[in-house]
C-alpha cells in the first residue's frame, strides 16, 4: 500500500501505518486525516508532535494509557484525559494519532 502526499508516494503497511518512520513529512498527516474525514487543528498537531518526540526519546509508540498520562504531565489534566484525546482522534488517540505521526502501531495496543 502507499499514500500520496506533496506529490510523492510513501509506502504504508496493511493497516495504513507508514513503513519508514524517517520518510514522514507533515503533509502525510494531513492526507491521512482527510481520508478519515478530519481537519487537523493546532490541537491535533500538538499531540502529533508530542508523539514524534516521545518516539525519538524512547523508540516506541506509547500505549494510549501511557500517552494520556504523559500528555497530562506535559500539558495539564484538561488535555491529559481520554475524553479530550478521543474528541481529537475519534478512532483512538493511540492508533490514529500514531498513524498520522508516522509511528508504528503502539506497543501494548490490543
Amino acid at each position, binding site marked *: 500500500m502507499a499514500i500520496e502526499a506533496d506529490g510523492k508516494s510513501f509506502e504504508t503497511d496493511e493497516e495504513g501505518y507508514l513503513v519508514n518512520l524517517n520518510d514522514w513529512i507533515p503533509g502525510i498527516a494531513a492526507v491521512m486525516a482527510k481520508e478519515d474525514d478530519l481537519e487537523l487543528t493546532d490541537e491535533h498537531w500538538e499531540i502529533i508532535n508530542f508523539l514524534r518526540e516521545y518516539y525519538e*526519546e*524512547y*523508540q*516506541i509508540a*506509547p*500505549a494510549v*494509557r*501511557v500517552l494520556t*498520562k*504523559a500528555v497530562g*504531565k506535559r500539558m495539564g489534566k484538561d488535555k491529559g484525559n481520554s475524553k479530550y484525546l478521543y474528541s481529537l482522534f475519534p478512532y483512538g488517540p493511540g492508533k490514529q494519532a500514531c498513524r498520522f505521526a508516522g509511528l508504528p502501531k503502539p*506497543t*501494548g495496543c*490490543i
Partner: protein
Amino acid sequence: MSEQIKKFLYLNRRAPYGTIYAWESLEVVLIGAAFDQKVSLAFVDDGVFEIVKGQDTSESGFKNFSPTYAALGDYDVNQLFVEKESLEERGLSIDDLMHLTWEDEDEDWAEKDSIRVVSRSELSEIMADQDVVFSF
C-alpha cells in the same frame, strides 16, 4: 475485574543483542503492562548488559532499543531488580547502568529510582514470592 492481581516477574538473563530474547522480553513486558498485574523485572547473568548505559549498536546492524527501558516507568513498571553478583562477576557496578526512574503521580511527579541492586539470596526470595516467572 474480579480476577485476582498476580505478581509477574520477567527474568532477563541474556546479552541484549545477538539473540532476540532481550527485545522480546521488553515487548512482552510493555504489552503485559496493559493488564492490571504487578510486574517486576530482574536482570541476572549477561542480562545485566541489557541496561548498561551508553549502548552503541551502530556497527552491529541491530536497533539500539536501550532507550525503551526508560519508558517502563510510564508503563507503571518501576521495580527492576539487578543481581549484585552478576554485576560484580562482569566488573560492573550500578554506576555503569542507565539511571532508570519513574515518576510518582501521587507525589506531584516526584522522580524515584526503579533499579534496586539485590544479592543472589535476596533475589531467590523475590522469585519465590512471585505467582508467575517468565524467563528470557
